[in-house]
């Protein structure tokens, strides 16, 4: 909708005031307004007129008309809504609906009109808001003024105090007959203090000091996506029908969301009142010609206790990691107990663990550049030929104890050369033309199918297909750190617990 102008007219159609919201020349708007009385129809039950170029929508107000001029494509429902608001604004400012009153109140009316429409689009405001906006009664301004006043007052008092002190000092000096060391001191001091206390000119605002700037809360990730209620089904039905009629309809699932979802999605597990989560994150950068730049695995055991009676417990950790992972426990954890028995308990055995909170009790870090430690090695080999590039990609599971789920190997494609021709492959692939990616998807990689390959050809240069990135999730941890049991501190009887383990990818790139 585009609202061109809002005007108040007399019964005969003469415009008293008019405010335009889009750029238009004076002669044009005057012409449009002059044409209105001749077009205006009386005795009909509708209140709009259309000409070749514009639409007039109006509403009678006693002896006046509230008139809106809109484009012909404008949304009439929206316009009527706006018109209603406009005509409710007028009585707010004018006691009687007469020409003279409108002229008297022309400026407040124009100010109010401005609040309703912005660049031809309706603002979401109501009458009370318009009032507030036009009254301009700002709390912040008052605070600002008060602060300044008190500052000024303080400065004056300070000045007086200083002056008194100086006077006293001078008197003292005179009394003792000594000359003050810096003879101009009194004078200088006075001038300094007066310089400080000169009242700032009212219009001389300094840029506001560190305002509490607005930081909006992050929009929550779409917690409730399309509900699969009746409405959703209705939409699907509609879409199906359209498709059957030959209309293309794309699905709403954008790849970005699916990637996000994959990151978060770890299978939900039934949780006991003591729940352990072992989570590892892999950051890995490898070279295309083999060689591992860096691999870092961060692991963490977090504990969540939802029942008070299990507050005081001890975890028995089984660490069979032989690849040099560095283990660290939480400062509150009894180190000696851990080193001696490989058990985790609080330093103060009488204190329980906090309830209903994820508490990280132990973490480890494994850093390496030994290729053989990579969880999954990728070999991407582009061969440039006369008409483009043949690319062979191969993966191999290096750590056979792992089982990787939802593996996506994304290979960038040069832009503007069209879709690649994919030859043999294990698993499935998908071309995301918007991001320019070839995504090779493998639901599961484990010891039984530890390697696979993909072949495709595409125009481009061999450098175009890097960096290849990989994402996956796994429910087995990389480092062999597990919790073998949990027992109560006092008594020592075992505690039932649940645990889940996840291996996630933070960054896995082959440059």
């Amino acid at each position, binding site marked *: 909708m585009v609202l061109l102008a809002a005007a108040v007219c007399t019964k005969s159609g003469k415009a008293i005031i008019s405010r*335009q919201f889009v750029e238009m020349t004076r002669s044009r708007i005057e012409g449009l307004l002059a*044409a209105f009385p001749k077009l205006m129809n009386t005795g009909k039950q509708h209140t709009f007129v259309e000409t070749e170029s514009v639409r007039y929508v109006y509403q009678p107000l006693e002896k006046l008309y509230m008139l809106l001029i809109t484009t012909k494509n404008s949304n009439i429902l929206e316009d009527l809504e706006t018109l209603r608001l406009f005509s409710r604004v007028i009585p707010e400012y004018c006691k009687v609906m007469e020409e003279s009153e409108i002229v008297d109140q022309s400026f407040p009316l124009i*100010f109010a009109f401005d609040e309703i429409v912005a660049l031809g689009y309706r603002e*979401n405001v109501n009458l009370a808001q318009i009032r507030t906006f036009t009254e301009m009664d700002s709390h912040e301004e008052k605070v600002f003024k008060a602060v300044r006043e008190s500052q000024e007052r303080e400065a004056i008092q300070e000045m007086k105090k200083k002056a008194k002190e100086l006077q006293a000092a001078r008197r003292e000096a005179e009394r003792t007959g000594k000359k003050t060391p810096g003879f101009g001191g009194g004078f200088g001091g006075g001038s300094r203090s007066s310089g400080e206390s000169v009242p700032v000119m009212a219009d001389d605002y300094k840029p506001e000091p560190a*305002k509490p700037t607005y930081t909006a809360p992050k*929009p929550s990730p779409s917690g409730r996506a399309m509900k699969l209620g009746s409405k959703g089904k209705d*939409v699907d039905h509609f879409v199906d029908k359209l498709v059957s009629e030959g209309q293309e*309809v794309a699905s709403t699932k*954008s790849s970005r969301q699916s990637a996000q979802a994959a990151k978060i999605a770890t299978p939900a597990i039934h949780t006991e009142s003591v729940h352990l989560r072992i989570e590892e994150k892999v950051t890995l950068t490898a070279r295309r010609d083999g060689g591992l730049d860096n691999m870092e695995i961060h692991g963490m055991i977090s504990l969540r206790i939802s029942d008070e009676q299990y507050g005081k417990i001890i975890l028995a950790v089984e660490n069979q990691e032989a690849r040099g992972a560095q283990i660290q426990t939480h400062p509150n954890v009894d180190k000696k107990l851990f080193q001696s028995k490989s058990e985790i308990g609080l330093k103060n055995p009488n204190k329980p663990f906090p309830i209903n909170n994820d508490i990280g009790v132990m973490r480890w870090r494994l850093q390496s550049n030994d290729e053989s430690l990579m969880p999954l090695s990728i070999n991407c080999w582009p061969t440039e030929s006369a008409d483009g590039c043949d690319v062979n990609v191969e993966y191999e599971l290096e750590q056979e104890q792992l089982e990787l789920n939802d593996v996506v190997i994304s290979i960038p494609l040069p832009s503007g050369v069209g879709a690649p021709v994919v030859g043999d492959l294990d698993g499935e692939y998908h071309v995301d033309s918007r991001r320019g990616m070839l995504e090779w998807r493998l639901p599961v990689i484990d010891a039984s199918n530890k390697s696979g390959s993909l072949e495709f050809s595409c125009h481009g240069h061999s450098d175009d297909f890097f960096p290849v990135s990989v994402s996956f999730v796994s429910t087995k941890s990389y480092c062999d750190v597990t919790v073998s049991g949990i027992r109560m501190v006092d008594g020592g009887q075992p505690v039932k617990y649940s645990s889940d383990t996840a291996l996630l990818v933070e960054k896995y790139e082959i440059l």
Partner: protein
Amino acid sequence: MTTAAEQPCYTLINIPSDAEPPTELQLKTDLEKGDVRTKTEALKKVIHMILNGEKMPSLLMTIIRFVMPLQDHTIKKLLLIFWEIVPKCGPDGKMLHEFILVCDAYRKDLQHPNEFIRGSTLRFLCKLKEPELLEPLMPSIRTCLEHRHSYVRRNAVLAIFTIYKNFDSLIPDGPELIHNFLEQEQDASCKRNAFMMLIHADQERALDYLSTCIDQLHTFGDILQLVIVELVYKVCHANPSERARFIRCIYNLLNSSSPAVRYEAAGTLVTLSSAPTAIKAAASCYIELIVKESDNNVKLIVLDRLIALKDNPQHERVLQDLVMDILRVLSTPDLEVRKKTLNLALDLVSSRNVEELVLVLKKEVIKTNDITEHEDTDKYRQLLVRTLHSCSIKFPDMAGTVIPVLMEFLSDQNELAAADVLVFVREAIQRFDQLKHVILEKLLEVFPSIKSVKIHRAALWILGEYCTTAEDIQALMHEIRHSLGDIPIVESEMKKAAGEIKDEDEFTPTQQKLLTAEGTYATQSALTATVKKSSEEKRPPLRGFLMDGDFFVGASLATTLTKLAIRYGELVHNTKKHNSFNAECMLIMATIIHLGKSGLATKPITDDDLDRIALCLKVLSDRTPAVNDIFSRECRHSLSTMLAALHEEEKENQKTVIEKKTVSVQPDDPISFMQLVNKTEHGTTEDLFELSLLQAVGTPQKKDAADPQASKLQKVNQLTGFSDPVYAEAYVHVNQYDIVLDVLIVNQTSDTLQSVTLELATLGDLKLVEKPSPIILAPHDFANIKANVKVASTENGIIFGNIVYDVSGAASDRNCVVLNDIHIDIMDYIVPAQCSDNEFRQMWAEFEWENKVTVNTSITDLGTYMGHLLKSTNMKSLTPEKALSGECGFMAANLYARSIFGEDVLANLSIEKMIHLGEDAPVQGHIRIRAKSQGMALSMGDKVNMCQKNPPK
């Protein structure tokens, strides 16, 4: 050089001009010395004066020094308006230096602790077009994006939007900034404005954002949903391949809680896909809106959208399935809406849905009976009858069920519907032979209860024409007798008047006796009057009409009787019966004449009616076969030719409509491949939003620019002589509501001319928008001055004026060159228009000004003359082409046109060619022009006279 009239204008205030305008000096002291109140008032006055075209350069500095530093909120806002309208450039086109000071004030306001001052300053910046002023403000504007109050933020977004639009170099990262802002933002208004900016500035980003939140659309506010729909429309417009992505989203919006969004989404869905399901979804959404919204404006406009949908042949079929839903709209009380709906329904009727449609319409008709009488009910019923009529003609099977229902309305008080029913019945009885019997029976049944004269007359005609069997004729005769009451009428009336009801057998009183009788009874007038009144009520209908002096019905009764008698003679070969029938008919006619002459009726019979009845009498007594033939056959024949002609016309109309609909693609037309067309060529359907905005704002479209230069040169008027010291010529450019004079002034002397002023004055309904400012012309230099003239109505306007100048160094007075007059041609404002005959007659009766122009031409052919007239006056002939074709020595036609200001002008042309004056005799006659205003009538008359003088070559 741009004049103020070409600058964008945001505010108009019409002040009654009776108040004395304050002097500049007084304003100055007020602004300088007054208290806040006086200053406010003075500032308001300054704004008023600037709006009225005054330029007050000296006040600018005063305002900057004494008003700008004030902290009063009202003053601050008034100042913003003042900055909006005050000229910011000097005569050299450069910005005034004073504005550097103002710019600093803007900056401070942008950092003001009061959020509303910040906000309104930001809004004002949207209207600022000077990059020099905006540049230093950019950092402050950016920080406003992070302000705590949404009011500031949303205006900041708007400011960035317009600044980016106008000068993208000032904020090259605008879209990115706003995109980031949008992702953080929670307030609906801010979001909307930010999104709007992305739509216009960087669609890619807008799409990016949309794809992140496409699933939450239904949780957004309506204003945001609206711009999202706009985005989808725009994207799909520029990039049809993207359409598939958004269908689901748009469909979701069809279920939005806001009707405005639903409306917009439906419109967009139609452009996205032409699959039947999509069209159906959109159309149902429209229908739902029409039914649910109570506002008539909405109903009408949305109906227009539906009609537009229907006009696409692909979509028509889908809509046909929805006819029953469309009919739900009929529950609206507004006649206009109902009319549109019925027309739409009628266009959509097909053999599949006609039965249901007719059923609903019948129900509606019956419903109108129960409703308490309202002025519109009658018209509505008439509309329904007409619709049913057209339906039955299209699908003859329906006629049988429709007619009995409609016939009930003949006895109605309301003439409108009844007349239409009869028109329908007439056509039906002529067309559908099988229905004839039913119709006649029904008609005879309701005949006695008909209350209106006109209906009675028409019913009589139909009955007279179609009663072809002896039984029918007898039945009709019986009805007529019944309806007339005792004959002779005069006798029985006299008796009633006298209050003495005598026996039937005494019915041969003499004329003489009657007269005396009347003379004697005249004395008892008081008594007769009362008796008459009561008897009036008892009178059978036909007699009632006759007593009221409506003898036209008598005349038509006579014709009917004649037809019946003739036909009866052919059917029944018993001469006795035949003769007695004839005699009865003749008796009825005679008694009508008698009544007409007697003076008993309120009005005596007119000569025309008398002639007619007498003729019928003569026909019956003579019984010549030739005349019989005319009565019994030719009438029917002329009816059928009339119906055929109507039918043909309709067919012709339909054909043109169909031709319009079917897109004709020639076999050798080039095929455009979507992939091969570059973006600018996508002009298959232009972006409607942009287009309508451009149209509304009055920006000339590019297409017009293609006009050859030659036509522009034709409109150049020479204003002075070639040997005048100053030569001037003007190019007159006529826009819709204003005239731009582009005047070229050439200094032909070798002196420098100072303060050369173009002084213009106008005659007629023209108004000079602003005075052109004086210029200085070097020796043999030239300059262009533009002047705007506003036009308020169609009238032959004249612009006249002069050029005054000083010669530098000369001590003499100002010199003056008088300019030639510029005549503004009204033809630029007159466009042919169409109106119905009824409207024409009504306007003809209403309009007060008539201008009668005698035809005075050398043209010898009637058709040529008329063609010439139409062409040179832009009028349209309302008389159909058929009626004008052929050569008969005379011609009459109605012409109609309308000005773009909405004034109507009518003309009646009646011309003849005197055959006896020979082949080369010129056309003679009159043209009568009628209009509401004198100016229009006179101007049009002048125009006609002018065009007569210049015959076509």
